[in-house]
C-alpha cells in the first residue's frame, strides 16, 4: 500500500473556494477512472464538506490524495480548519441537525456517500474531516 503524497491542495477562504474544490476533485476523480456516479458522489461530498470548512470552520484547506491499493485506487479528501471545533460530534453527525439553520445533511450525507469517513476535532482548535472513496480496478493510466 503506497500513499502518494497530496496531489492537490485547495484553499477555502471564500465561496469561490467551494467551486474550486469541486473542480479539483472532479479532475482527479476522472483521471483515476471513477465511474460517473462515483464522480458525482465524490464532488457532492466535497462540496458539502468544503462549505462546512468555510461556514463553520472559518475557512481552511482541502487536500486531495491518491492511494494505490491492491487492485484499486483510493481517493482521499481531507478538509482541515482551525475553527471552533465540534462540541458534540454525535449530534453533528445526526441527520437533520444543524447549528446554523441548514438542512443538517452535509456532514451525515457526506459520511453516507463515502466509503470511509473520519472526523477529528477539538474545541477551540479546529476540525479535520476525511472521506475516502475507492475506485474498483487499478488506476486508469
Amino acid at each position, binding site marked *: 500500500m503506497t500513499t502518494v503524497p497530496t496531489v492537490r491542495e485547495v484553499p477555502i477562504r471564500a*465561496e469561490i473556494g467551494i*467551486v474550486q474544490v469541486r473542480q479539483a476533485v472532479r479532475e482527479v476523480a476522472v483521471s483515476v477512472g471513477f465511474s460517473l456516479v462515483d*464522480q*458525482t458522489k465524490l464532488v*457532492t461530498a466535497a462540496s*458539502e464538506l468544503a*462549505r462546512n470548512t468555510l461556514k463553520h470552520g472559518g475557512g481552511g484547506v482541502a487536500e486531495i490524495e491518491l492511494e494505490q491499493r491492491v487492485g484499486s485506487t483510493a481517493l482521499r479528501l481531507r478538509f482541515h480548519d482551525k475553527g471552533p471545533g465540534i462540541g458534540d460530534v454525535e449530534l453533528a453527525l445526526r441527520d437533520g441537525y444543524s447549528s446554523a439553520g441548514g*438542512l443538517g445533511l452535509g456532514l451525515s*450525507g457526506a459520511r453516507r*456517500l463515502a466509503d470511509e469517513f473520519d472526523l477529528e476535532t477539538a474545541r477551540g482548535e479546529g476540525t479535520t474531516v476525511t472521506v475516502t472513496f475507492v475506485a474498483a480496478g487499478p488506476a486508469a493510466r
Partner: protein
Amino acid sequence: MSATSVIELDGVLLVTIQGELTDHDAIALQQDLTTQVAERGARGVLINISALEIVDSFLARTLHEIAGVTSLLAAETVVVGMRPEVAITLVELGLTLNGLRTALSVSDGLSMFGGASIARRAEGA
C-alpha cells in the same frame, strides 16, 4: 460567474442554469426569479438543470425555496432535466425534495403548464 438565462414563453419563465453556481449565485437567482414572477405575473417557472453536474444540499434547498416562494405568488415551479447520477447522489445524501415538482425534459415540463402547443413552440424557439 455563472450563466443563467431566463426567457418568457406564454407566461412561463424558462430558466436554464448553464454553469457552476456559487452559493451567492443561487441566492441571487432566487431573488431574481421572485422579482420576475411578480413583475411579469408569470404562472409558471421551469428550471432546466440538465447542465448541472452536481446538486448539493445548498442548491437543493434553494430550488425548494424558489418553488415555495413562487407558489405564494401563484406560479408553479417545475425542475426539469436532473441527471440520473445527480438523482442517485441526492437520495444517498438524504435529500428527497418532497413537494418539488419535476419533469424529465423541458417539453414534458412545459406540457404541465398548458398542453402541447406551448411545448411545440418552445421546441421551435
